[in-house]
């Protein structure tokens, strides 16, 4: 942890999502170990690290799906339901018989709730969001007919409709082809220009270096958190890797 991040954490409390000595256990195992720092509002941060490093756990903790066992999270006055969250697509039943437009319109949930009616304005917004992700005319298609890339575009369109201040993306480019990834990165850049806060889990260092100014390198405990070039130094990456290796060498301890 560099002292700069910690310093700003104590100086300004409502400028971002703050972690204060947060540890999270999952299946009686400590998956996040003493994390302190801040995701400042209006910035883009990539989270990276070996498999099992607690990246998804961290995002679920921000979403309130998991509670920290020790430490505190301050979401800077933003309620959980105002966060936009894109989980790993594995958790969604893509064979479900629902249309593309119905999926996108769910992004208006904050306005319609479980029982409210969908207005024609929302339908226009949804259609606009679909063309913004390059799926013009896909409205009536069933989601089970879409490729993995097309489906990810649909989920991005739903996020567009949600219009959240903070967007959490869990490996959004997993199993997605280069062209789709490029288009989706373009949308993320647009979100940055709109001063939204973006927290994204990524494994591809090239993508991180090219698009994300800040990076958190996680191996259950934070290895480094700050400007991407500093975080992704070869020394830090080596440290993360050797910690991850120890999980396999001594499975009973970790």
């Amino acid at each position, binding site marked *: 942890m560099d002292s700069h991040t910690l310093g700003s954490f104590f100086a300004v409390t409502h400028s971002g999502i703050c972690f204060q000595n947060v540890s999270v256990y999952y299946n009686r195992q400590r998956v996040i170990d003493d994390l302190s720092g801040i995701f400042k509002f209006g910035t883009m941060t990539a989270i990276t690290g070996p498999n099992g490093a607690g990246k998804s756990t961290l995002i679920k903790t921000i979403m309130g799906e998991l509670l920290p066992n020790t430490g505190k999270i301050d979401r800077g006055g933003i309620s959980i339901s105002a966060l936009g969250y894109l989980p790993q697509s594995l958790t*969604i*039943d893509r064979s*479900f018989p629902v*249309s593309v437009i119905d999926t996108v319109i769910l992004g208006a*949930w*904050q306005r319609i709730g479980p029982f409210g009616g969908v207005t024609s304005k929302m339908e226009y917004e949804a259609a606009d969001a679909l063309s913004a992700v390059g799926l013009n005319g896909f409205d009536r298609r069933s989601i089970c007919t879409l490729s993995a890339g097309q489906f990810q575009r649909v989920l991005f369109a739903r996020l567009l409709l949600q219009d959240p201040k903070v967007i959490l993306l869990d490996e959004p480019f997993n199993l997605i082809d280069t062209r789709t990834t490029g288009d989706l990165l373009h949308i993320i850049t647009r979100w940055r220009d709109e001063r939204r806060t973006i927290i994204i889990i990524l494994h591809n260092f090239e993508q991180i270096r090219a698009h994300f100014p800040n990076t958190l390198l996680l191996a259950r405990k934070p290895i480094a958190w700050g400007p991407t070039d500093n975080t992704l130094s070869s020394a830090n990456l080596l440290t993360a890797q050797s910690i991850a290796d120890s999980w396999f060498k001594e499975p009973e301890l970790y």
Partner: protein
Amino acid sequence: MTMSAILIEPFVHYGFMRRALVSSVALGLGFGPLGVLLMLRRMSMIGDAISHAVLPGAAIAFLVVGSISMFAMWLGSLIASLIVAFFAGIVSQTTILKEDASFASFYLMSLALGVLILSLNGSNIELLHVLFGTILAVNTQDIFLVGGIASFTLITLALIYRPLVVQCYDPSFLRSVGERGSIYHLLFLFLVVINLVAGFQALGSLMAVGMMILPAVIAKLWARTLPAMTLIAAVSAVTSGFFGLLASYHLGFASGPSIIISASLIYILSLIFAPYGARTSIYNRSL
């Protein structure tokens, strides 16, 4: 015999056939959409478990009252199914047992218990009635109950449709927008319970769940959107009810199995002719 003598006259001439028809139409309308959602939630096994729980419930009620009193048996089976649904829900959410395994144990338990209690205290006829249904003994009171439950089911489903569907296909989204999906899940389970209880007189505790699952599977072979699937499921459930009753009347079969056999025939025909049936898949594979 003319067509009308086979298809219509039994209902014109006999009040019990008319009541049976009304009852199975009402049941079919509720069972169709419930079955589709049950299948999409991969909860067919829960339906099985709940439906079998009807048997010991009805058996205990029969034991207490001492005769076939529909109201007592309904009450008994309602309580028993709610208990099983409750425990099944707890087991599936708190242990690592896969749902199908824990529900298979639940329904085997229920079936054994129910048969034991009934065979100790009743005659084989009563056991057969509870297992396979006596729709031809439906009276006006029963119709009001079944109709009331069907109406309640359709209205509730219409109200909770959106959160229920979202909870089914993207539960983490529902959580992320701050909704408590478990409320809708429980309401849905409750609907399944009261419908299976409503269906046990007509179809029998062994057969009732068939009228939920078979139409749903048929619908999946024909349609790709949820509203269409719901509609097709309801129509096939009602159609199986109609032809099942006729078969039961003309051939003297028990009503429950006749209705389920009708549904099975529609299923087999759909497998052959439906756009997403076996024929299409085999054809596509050979391309």
